[in-house]
């Protein structure tokens, strides 16, 4: 039988489909991550006022640098619509190689290792783009391979026996700001300018939003993707270098705990995990938020076990606040 609604003759067909609307406006969405960062800072500051002292902020900046570097590289890949799960493993591998080779080869080591991590990234990008394998899978495999390789090369922590000064400059301060932080910020800004002003930047956004359109506009999609993953590789190497500077040693597991926080930093900043929307300014906010969370929770004396829980809640709420649901419609 017809399951028509109770009829009083003629129910007209409803005029308009309901649209899925975001609960908050675009402006609020854009500034939500910054608001989260500021409220988090003030909350920790309210409980523990010394957290906002110049000294603490200096420590905070220093602490954020590695996450910032990793998140910067990750942002490029995520904007392309992919993900690089191997970044932390490559950073660890880089730290081991740097620690081993610095005494013998000296500063040239850095050039060699960064070239190597860039190559690692491009190979992963090549496999992803040419063999049509999801980047998630390729870099998950990479995560295994590179961390295994790091473990084979060095079973344990390798102190930098000599030549530390090649990376040590990252650990001093200039004008009261840790060099590692300035360095990470500078790298982020160079890349941000590239994304905004180079054709490459446009290509990255276009591919992340609509790969097929990009392809049919004559963009060499494969090449851009390989370049994106190569950049992620380069930034993994830079992160490894910064960690050798911080710990005066390399270790095959040195960056392992930073993989998820660095991805979380990108997402919390408001860059869409599906690609094409977001940017490095947002990642900067996200990386700071993650760091405040890590350091802040310890400062107010919370059990470190709560830290991952706080991440989880924060990632979820950040995405809930920043996602633009009006785009979730089916494309007609």
């Amino acid at each position, binding site marked *: *039988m*017809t*399951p*028509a*609604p109770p*009829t009083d*003759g*003629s*129910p*007209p*067909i*409803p*005029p*308009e*489909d309901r649209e899925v609307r975001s609960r908050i406006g675009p402006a609020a969405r854009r500034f939500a991550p910054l608001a989260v960062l500021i409220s988090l800072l003030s909350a920790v500051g309210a409980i523990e006022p010394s957290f906002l002292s110049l000294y603490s902020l200096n420590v905070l900046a220093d602490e954020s640098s590695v996450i910032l570097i990793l998140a910067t590289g990750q942002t490029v890949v995520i904007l392309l619509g992919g993900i690089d799960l191997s970044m932390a493993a490559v950073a660890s591998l880089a730290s081991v190689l740097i620690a081993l080779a610095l005494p013998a080869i000296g500063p040239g080591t850095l050039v060699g290792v960064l070239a190597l991590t860039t190559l690692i990234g491009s190979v992963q990008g090549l496999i992803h783009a040419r063999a049509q394998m999801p980047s998630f899978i390729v870099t998950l495999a990479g995560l295994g391979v590179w961390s295994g390789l790091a473990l084979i090369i060095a079973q344990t922590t390798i102190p930098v026996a000599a030549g530390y000064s090649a990376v040590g400059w990252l650990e001093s301060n200039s004008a009261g700001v840790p060099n590692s932080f300035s360095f990470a910020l500078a790298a982020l800004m160079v890349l941000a300018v590239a994304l905004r*002003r*180079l*054709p490459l930047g*446009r*290509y990255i*956004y*276009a591919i992340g*939003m*609509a790969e*097929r*359109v*990009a*392809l*049919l*506009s*004559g*963009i*060499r999609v*494969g090449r851009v993707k390989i370049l994106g993953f190569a950049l992620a590789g380069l930034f993994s190497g830079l992160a490894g270098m910064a960690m050798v500077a911080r710990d005066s040693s390399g270790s095959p597991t040195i960056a392992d705990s930073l993989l998820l926080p660095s991805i979380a930093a990108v997402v919390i900043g408001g860059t869409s995990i599906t690609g*094409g*929307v977001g940017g490095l300014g947002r990642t900067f906010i996200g990386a700071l938020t993650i760091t405040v969370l890590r350091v802040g929770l310890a400062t107010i004396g919370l059990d470190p076990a709560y830290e991952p829980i706080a991440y989880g809640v924060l990632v979820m709420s950040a995405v809930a606040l920043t996602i633009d649901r009006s*785009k979730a419609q089916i*494309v*007609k």
Partner: protein
Amino acid sequence: MTEPVLRVEGLSKSFAGVCALDDVSIDVRPREVIGLIGENGAGKSTLLKVLAGVLRADRGRIIVRGTPVSSVNVAAAAASGIGIVFQEQAVLPNVTVAENILLGHERRALRAGFYDWRTLYALAVTQLDKLGAGISPSALTATLSFGERQLVEIARALAIEERTRHEPIILFDEPTSMLDAHGTETVLGQIERLRLRASVVFVSHRLDEVLRVSDRICVMVNGRCVSTRDRAMCNIADLERLMLGRELDAAYQQQAPLSTHGRKVRLSVRALSRQNSYQGVSFELHAGEVLGIAALAGSGGESLCRTLFGAERADTGEIVLDGRAVRLREPADAVRLGIGYVPAERRLEGIVGGLGVRENMTLAHLDELRRGPFIDLAGEEQLVKSWIQRLRISTPAADTPAHDLSGGNQQKVVLAKWLIGRKLKLLILDHPMRGLDIGVKAEMFALIRELAREGLGVLLVADTVDEVMALSHSIVVMKDGVISGRFPATAAKPSRLQVLERMV
């Protein structure tokens, strides 16, 4: 006369301001086969989708056996006895035939939440038997042929019969467009068979088929049902006249003849073949010439376009641009050679919805807009604004996201994307007027003519005869992947009928 099982009253539906259905009314009587014909964009598929609950109408009523239905989704439409067989097959390839047939209505075949396979198969066989189809219910759907999968879809639509205890109304959206002669016979046979237990609404491009199986034929033009006739009362010529017989707008004035004598051959295609798409296609396109390829969907026209733009590869044959054989490995190669492509699927292939008009327009030619390594933003802005003006793109700002524009304005942006290129030689237009309203169409027509006058080579693929006739100097007709007719610019203009009869 018997009461209609399905009555449609005053149905209207617009997409982004473009009217797809305009006050359509139709009756379907019990065990009647209605043939629905019309050019592309006439609203046939939209009508079926509204009836099946896939789309919602803006105005109007659907009445099934005297009861008005507000079909908000396919399940509700099915519950009122309407089933649809989609143009693109909607069966799950990775499960069995029986699961597909009973998808969403497995309850009778469940025991404690698990499939009782014997009952499931038995229920599926009941449906398959109605069609006399000897398909095993336990076969994996992916292993079936195209025609067999279509039978599975029909069987699924027929299963509505048991659930509603009424004879169902089955809608077919171009069931034969992708089939060869043998497959077509099978489907037409099925429709004949269905007449004994169901009412059928059947959309097709092929008039001979429609005349064969339909009791009555409804002709749609521009979203309106202009005529409904008994089969006995009409022949192919009548139907063609009804389909095309709208008053011709100024936009549809015929393209002026062109002498290709002494003109440079811009593009020469030699014996190009691609398996399952097109075979042995050869033609020449001169500078300043619009070459129209008239082809129905799936006749190879779209695929040929993609090949000439480097997005698909040909198996054999040669593409010669300005006297040089070219190899197009990806679209970027074609763009570098000065080839532009306006795809048929604007939303999926033409426009990056989230990017602004400016970014969309310059996406293909950023290398020409550089100052040093950087994009010359000021120059870009100026260029984009001049094109917004020249093409009269109505957009609030140059940076408005492209998805906020109407379809017609989006299409202008896609065109501008190629026109800003300094070395554009050949523009490939794949169904460029699809979904555009008449006003924008007229502008597009004028623009394409102007571009040709300026010396651009234009390759146009379209499935509406009017469009091809109005724009092209020379016409090539494709049917089932091969060229079935040629009307060079030098010869006399063909009549519409001459073109149409070579298409279908």
